[in-house]
């Protein structure tokens, strides 16, 4: 999508119509929501897929035996080439380049890969040179759902060397945690991209008593056009990653806004005005 929206046939989960109306997204992204294809809950029937006549199916995410066999089967059934790309955040540049080669768009792919690499290198550099703060990533309206350390949900934050307080030896991925546990963890920073949560804690005495909230260390991220840090786990996370680093370094607002503007321009081919950027950041 970032690489060549004109070649995209449709989306699995998103419907960008509202974003386009709001002027946040370039109209070239106006494609139908087709539904998920991979995995068990397939919404898009194979027949309608064939009717769309795609040349290539790209699936970016976990490369496990299950996904691999599903991709094989898809290719066998439809006769359409299927590309399964490992969605690891650190490999974003390689993913872009690989896809660029397949699609014959090496030039643009290389530009984006370089941008991605820049962001990631900066982040790695930051991680190596700054003392790590601890963070809690609040999901769901009451904020008690979180991504455990090492999960794809918090990967973008952890790249910056921040330490996820939610560490569990026996569990991976998402989990529900108790408030007492959060108090006990006492994170330096609380990060969220759930607007309802940001509202919720305004009136919640326990959340407000947390050190991170008292010291104004609640960082709220936008979830438009995609979640900046998570949901989905794609290159959209580079934006959140960059913004988070800027916030942590207390970069001047002008620079922050410029970075966001540029990211939208490069990756989403969308020109945002300053008020629009501020609107996204104000959330």
């Amino acid at each position, binding site marked *: 999508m970032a690489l060549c929206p004109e070649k995209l046939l449709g989306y699995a*989960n998103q419907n960008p119509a509202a974003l386009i109306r709001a002027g946040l997204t370039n109209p070239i992204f106006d494609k139908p929501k087709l539904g*998920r294809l991979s995995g068990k*809950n397939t*919404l898009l029937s194979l027949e309608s897929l064939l009717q769309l006549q795609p040349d290539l199916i790209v699936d970016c995410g976990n490369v496990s035996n299950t996904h691999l066999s599903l991709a094989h089967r898809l290719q066998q059934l439809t006769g359409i080439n299927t590309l399964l790309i490992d969605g690891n955040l650190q490999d974003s540049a390689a993913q872009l380049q690989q896809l660029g080669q397949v699609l014959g768009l090496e030039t643009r792919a290389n530009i984006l890969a370089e941008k991605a690499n820049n962001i990631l290198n900066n982040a790695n550099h930051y991680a190596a040179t700054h003392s790590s703060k601890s963070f809690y990533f609040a*999901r*769901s*309206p*009451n904020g*008690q*759902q979180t991504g*455990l350390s090492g999960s794809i949900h918090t990967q973008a934050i952890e790249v910056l060397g921040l330490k996820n307080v*939610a*560490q*569990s*030896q*026996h*569990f991976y991925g*998402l*989990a*529900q*945690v*108790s*408030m*007492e*546990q959060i*108090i*006990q963890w006492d994170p330096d920073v609380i990060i969220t991209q*759930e607007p*309802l949560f940001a*509202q*919720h804690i305004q009136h*919640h*005495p*326990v959340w407000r*008593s947390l050190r991170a909230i008292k010291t104004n260390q609640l960082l709220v991220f936008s979830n438009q056009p995609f*979640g900046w840090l*998570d*949901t*989905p*786990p794609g290159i959209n996370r580079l934006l959140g990653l960059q913004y988070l680093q800027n916030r942590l370094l207390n970069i001047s607002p002008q620079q922050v806004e410029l970075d966001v503007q540029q990211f939208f321009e490069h990756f989403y081919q969308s020109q945002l005005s300053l008020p629009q950027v501020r609107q996204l950041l104000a959330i």
Partner: protein
Amino acid sequence: MTLTHIKYPLLICVCLGSLLLAFSSGQYPLSLQQQGMLLLHFFSQHSNDINDSAANVFWHLRLPRILAAIMIGAGLAAAGAAYQGMFRNPLVSPDILGVSAGAGLGAVLGIYLDQSMLMIQLLAFGSGMLMVLLVCAIARLSQQRDPMLSLVLVGIALAALCGAGISLIKLLADPYSQLPSITFWLMGGLSGISLSDLQATMPLILIGLLPLFLLRWRMNLLSLPDDEAKTLGINVRQTRLIFIASATLLTAAAVSLAGIVGWLGLVVPHIARLMAGADFRQLLPTSMLTGAALLLFTDTLSRTLVDIELPLGILTACIGAPFFIFLLIRGQGRR
């Protein structure tokens, strides 16, 4: 007779035990002594010399959660005992008329539409009640001679429809943000309970319990065959409607607050019946105490067993199902 005499003190000890265990465990270190002090300070209006966050944990987290566990445990158990009596079937659970399925659909829809927690709870409660109303209305239309049988059958059918609705929403939901929330809700849990939740739900549970308590003797007659009950001089239809309404109110209130906590309403009345016998006058309070103690204990496990929250539904099923099988095997001779 002596056995029955020991049973009640034993039950009360178990209740107190699980209460103390619940108060004394949790990730945040808070001694019982400190908590006693906090309570004392509250009643004597003294200034607070215990640190803020301890007070916060006690007043806003541990206490509401414990109260909620007691309330929901007692409510679900009472509803289960009432439903089992009414349907003259010890294998019936409070979900029989589709309350849980309806509430589940409401909550899932709320999550899908990105509603706030309060709205999700309201939706769950409303659609749970609505579902039972619908089941009763449709069952009245049916040609079945036995009204209870048609209620059960319509309940099963509508619960299946709700299940389909839930599956559909799960399919449409955003797999990265909404789907996990839906999954967590459907597994039940008391992690997000606040005092204001309690204030809203407590009255509903009390309103549901009141008729059950006042009409506790009549419940016995309702568990006889309809003809017998009628000739003994009670209005079976009316009484049953009151019981269904109360038990449904209890279940819907509990489910809207805690998500789907299975097995409790099915297993607890059995345990209580072993202790107190079939007479609803004793069965109701025994069920409520047992249910409260069991859910309190289970919830304590769910928040302390590992560093994250284990969903309640998983734990109650792990405790409930084996126990139920045990009862089935053992109960063959008794029934």
